């Protein structure tokens, strides 16, 4: 039986049922606004620029979003990404690409497991645990690498696999610069969105973040869900390191510092509840796109008194506006 409800409430309900719908509408509005008002915005060059700018943050936020839905934070992903970048870079330079790939996923996964195990063994909030390991992992990386930066002028095929130009597409679109990293990002988003909403594990992620006690009471293995979330997030951070080195052919100890916050920002703008229990991976992807688009739009607008490199203020305002909007939609629906 369907009860009659006012259309506004109905609309708000469908918005809150799918956390990504609101951000998607916002993305489209911003895109149309910029396209109509900002010179040079609606070009393949700037559109592919906006997309390429999110591949690293986007890949990181896949795991970060899943953890946030389960009620946890991971501030160490930027550091783990640098570790992955070094391992992959060093081994591809040593003509060991296969080993490089495997270890750049396995070692970061183990670092993620360290985060998860500290969390479930000590009960310290993950915000604090990963704030600690953020510095710890980077410190260890500095010790192992003696602080030296890794750089190569070689261009082995494997770099093309992760960041090659998609010339099949680009040659038809003037100025376009689509990269294979975008395909990897979309693949990961699709896989993890599926895991989240269509598998038992994903169901438990939502339950653990929504009401830990209820999940425990129904026999959900809460500790497994938490540790597994950190392992996956670590592996994805390692993969982001692979993308990073394939893109820039270089990695430093400080690489990726601050990206953990960009990943959280993307998740929040994309409708993920900071208290856990609600959110979506493709929403986070939309969130990352919104931030990247605002950045490009603001730079192109060339507003007086807002210099191009002061877009942090814009991002900050976006995060707060997104949180207010999400709260409003949620309030309307209940």
């Amino acid at each position, binding site marked *: 039986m369907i009860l009659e409800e006012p259309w506004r409430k109905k609309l708000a309900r469908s918005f809150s049922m799918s956390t990504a719908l609101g951000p998607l509408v916002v993305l489209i509005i911003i895109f149309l606004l910029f396209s109509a008002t900002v010179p040079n915005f609606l070009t393949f060059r700037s559109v592919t620029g906006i997309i390429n700018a999110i591949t690293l943050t986007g890949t990181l936020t896949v795991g970060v979003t899943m953890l946030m839905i389960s009620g946890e934070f991971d501030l160490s992903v930027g550091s783990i990404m640098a570790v992955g970048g070094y391992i992959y870079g060093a081994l591809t330079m040593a003509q060991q690409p296969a080993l490089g790939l495997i270890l750049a996923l396995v070692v970061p996964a183990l670092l993620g497991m360290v985060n998860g195990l500290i969390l479930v063994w000590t009960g310290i909030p993950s915000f604090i645990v990963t704030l600690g390991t953020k510095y710890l992992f980077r410190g260890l990386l500095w010790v192992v690498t003696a602080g030296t930066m890794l750089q190569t002028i070689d261009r082995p095929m494997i770099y093309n696999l992760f960041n090659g130009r998609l010339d099949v597409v680009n040659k038809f679109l003037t100025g376009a610069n689509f990269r294979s990293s975008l395909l990897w990002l979309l693949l990961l988003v699709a896989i993890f969105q599926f895991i989240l909403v*269509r598998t038992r594990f994903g169901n438990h992620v939502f339950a653990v973040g929504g009401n830990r006690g*209820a999940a425990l*009471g129904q*026999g959900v293995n809460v500790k497994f869900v938490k540790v597994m979330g950190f392992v996956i997030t670590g592996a994805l951070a390692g993969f982001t390191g692979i993308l990073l080195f394939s893109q820039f052919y270089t990695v430093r100890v400080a690489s990726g510092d601050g990206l953990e916050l960009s990943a959280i920002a993307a998740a929040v703008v994309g409708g993920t509840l900071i208290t856990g229990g609600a959110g979506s991976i493709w929403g986070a992807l939309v969130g990352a796109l919104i931030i990247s688009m605002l950045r490009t739009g603001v730079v192109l607008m060339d507003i007086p008194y807002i210099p191009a490199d002061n877009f942090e203020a814009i991002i900050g305002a976006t995060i707060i506006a997104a949180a207010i909007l999400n709260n409003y939609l949620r309030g309307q629906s209940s």
Partner: protein
Amino acid sequence: MADKEHVHGRNSLVWMEKISKKFGTITALQDVDFGVEGGEVRALLGDNGAGKSTLIKVLMGVYPPNTGQIYFQGQPVKISSPREAREIGIEAVYQDLALVNLMSISRNFFLGREMVKHFGPVHWLDVHRMNEICRKSLHDIGIAIRSPAERVGSLSGGERQSIAIGRGVHFGAKVLILDEPTSALSVAETRKVLTYIANAKERGLGVIFITHNVHHVYLVADSYTVIRHGRNVGTYFKGELTEDDIADLITGDREV
């Protein structure tokens, strides 16, 4: 209803015998006997801090008792986690801890017991089937829902209780433990929840109804166990005592 001599012992559906539990130097429970028969609603009454929740947590495997033994269907059992309790058929419905408000009715219904489809090593949730079974099962117990895909958070307190109860019944619980199920509900909602409880009882389940307010449980319960300061004050059958008598026993204003 059987009389006092013939029920409540090791052959009950659940029987907790001489349960004692200490936390450090504090005695939370001292030699408490408690149990429930199939097809019976047993009220567990006591003031705040009397030991009601400790006793139930011992039964659910949250706390191991210092001394005492639990019998289930006549057999001695050791229950060391809520999961084990649920596996043998003891289901607890806690007020705030039963459901995940941000998830749908059907996902809550099947939480921890999800139905999946397989293709090789890949498995995924059979959402359609879970929705159908959830709707049908709740309907059979007399619970009408708008849609199994609706979020639990948009339901009223009584509807949430009913879904948690319906879930327990559907998955074959033999004992249903309800913690203050009606204390936050309106009169109309309370009445509804009480009919679900009566329904579960008719199906042969043993229902343990925990409350500090005898008024909530007086009409629906078949028997009443009062505990005070961690001790069993007594067990009484329907009609033996008035509501006021029981209230006095709970507070200790009067002994019987």
